[in-house]
């Protein structure tokens, strides 16, 4: 809790009457003060000094007092200066900043329901997937261990978004973020699609963008569930993916919404060689990732939303054997390709709301 009057503008922070201390111990003590104020994610941060904030904004030709508007649930004002302070703390380089802004902008879209994602008891966190030339330019990892540690861009961008969600949106754990558990992706959850080694067209081209545009897609997701499959038969492979998807504990079986399947490059290659295109994969999974009404009645969430007709109209709810697909349409199963070599793919259950894709703009508005 902060009971002091904070400076509001970056100008106010640059009071020339004080001299910047130079000792390492002073910097450590300042860091401890930020941690004690609850402004960090628990890990050490870089100090968001006014000069560092200026260095984040100036190459991007952004003014500190302009911004993205307000972030829920407390509707804090996301000025560029404030978002930049969070990006500095997270370890971002200035060239990462447009990705952070695009992700937050995408999350402000109604279809994502940022208010709900911030406050729910569910485990959900926004997964950021980056497409286009910006990945190579700023070093976003889309290959081996792309959802693990090790790449500064992945780590710092994901972390900056989370810090802004808490420090500006106000979703403080246990207070307005009511997550029963949360998951490790709430520290940082960002990767690139491996377009270079993908057998399918880049994901963002399925969302109305050109391959040469750079985008970030925000998806309200659980932690990834691995699918280890060494089969050379595409039906067996996709059957295993579908089996992993259709389970009683995920939200989607009851509220539909959207889910994400990230195929490893080897799995995608196998499917491509068998003649499967992305839409065939989506159709197969929509056909096979289903549970019977009778099983769903015993699943503990039955009755919540079934009355709102979130299942497809054609499911006969009176028939215990009638099969309910995990989402309403094949297109609600997002299929991307990422990672390195190995017989693995990922299933990422959703929360119930929709993914949103936004273009990454640099230079005060030009495309990245």
């Amino acid at each position, binding site marked *: *809790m*902060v009971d*002091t009057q*904070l*400076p*509001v503008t*970056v100008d106010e*922070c*640059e*009071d020339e009457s*004080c001299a*910047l*201390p130079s000792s390492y111990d*002073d*910097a450590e*003590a*300042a860091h*401890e*003060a*930020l941690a*004690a*104020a609850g*402004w960090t994610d628990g890990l050490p941060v870089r*100090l*968001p*000094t*006014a*000069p560092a*904030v200026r260095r984040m904004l100036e190459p991007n030709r952004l003014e*500190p007092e302009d911004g993205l508007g307000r972030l*829920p649930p*407390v*509707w*804090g*004002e*996301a000025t560029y*200066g*404030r978002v*930049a*302070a*969070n990006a*500095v*703390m997270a370890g971002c380089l200035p060239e990462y900043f447009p990705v952070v802004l695009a992700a937050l902008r995408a999350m402000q879209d109604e279809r994502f*329901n940022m*208010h*709900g994602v911030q406050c*729910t008891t569910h485990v959900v966190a926004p997964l950021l997937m980056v497409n286009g030339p910006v990945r190579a330019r700023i070093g976003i990892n889309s290959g081996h261990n792309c959802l693990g540690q090790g790449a500064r861009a992945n780590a710092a961008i994901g972390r900056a978004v989370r*810090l*802004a969600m*808490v*420090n*500006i*949106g*106000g979703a*403080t754990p246990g207070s307005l973020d009511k997550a029963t558990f949360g998951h490790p992706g709430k520290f940082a959850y960002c990767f690139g699609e491996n377009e270079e080694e993908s057998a399918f067209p880049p994901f963002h081209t399925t969302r109305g963008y050109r391959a040469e545009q750079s985008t970030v897609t925000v998806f309200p997701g659980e932690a990834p569930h691995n699918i280890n499959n060494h089969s050379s038969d595409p039906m067996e492979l996709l059957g295993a993916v579908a089996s992993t998807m259709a389970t009683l504990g995920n939200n989607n079986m009851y509220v539909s919404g959207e889910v994400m399947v990230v195929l490893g490059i080897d799995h995608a290659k196998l499917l491509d060689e068998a003649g499967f295109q992305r839409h065939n994969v989506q159709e197969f999974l929509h056909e096979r990732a289903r549970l019977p009404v009778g099983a769903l009645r015993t699943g503990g969430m039955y*009755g*919540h939303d079934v009355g709102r007709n979130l299942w497809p109209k054609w499911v006969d709810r009176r028939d215990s054997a009638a099969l309910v697909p995990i989402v309403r349409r094949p297109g609600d199963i997002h299929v991307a390709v990422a990672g390195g070599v190995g017989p693995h793919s990922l299933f990422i259950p959703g929360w*119930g*709301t929709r993914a949103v894709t936004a273009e990454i703009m640099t230079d005060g508005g030009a495309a990245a």
Partner: protein
Amino acid sequence: MRLEDAIRDFQLVPPIDPRVTEQRRMAERPTDLAGLRVGLLDNRKANANVLLTSIGGGLEERYGAGSTALFEKPVFSRPSPEHLLSELERFDAVVTALGD
């Protein structure tokens, strides 16, 4: 080091919107419900309406509330729309509940 000293000495740009740390207070409670109009807000999760209807009955019978009326949020995962909130402002008190 105190936070204000860190901010001053290192020229730190606060990463927060001050409203994040503002103390949010609960609405003032009426001391007596006699004759008051009480709104009941159902978040639309399972059984919230059952719980609220039962509480509403109790408030009328045991505490003399003048009347109660039940409202529903359209979708439990989204905030109440403005028109619903302005409708609830006409009541002397509102009780909400999460079902499950």
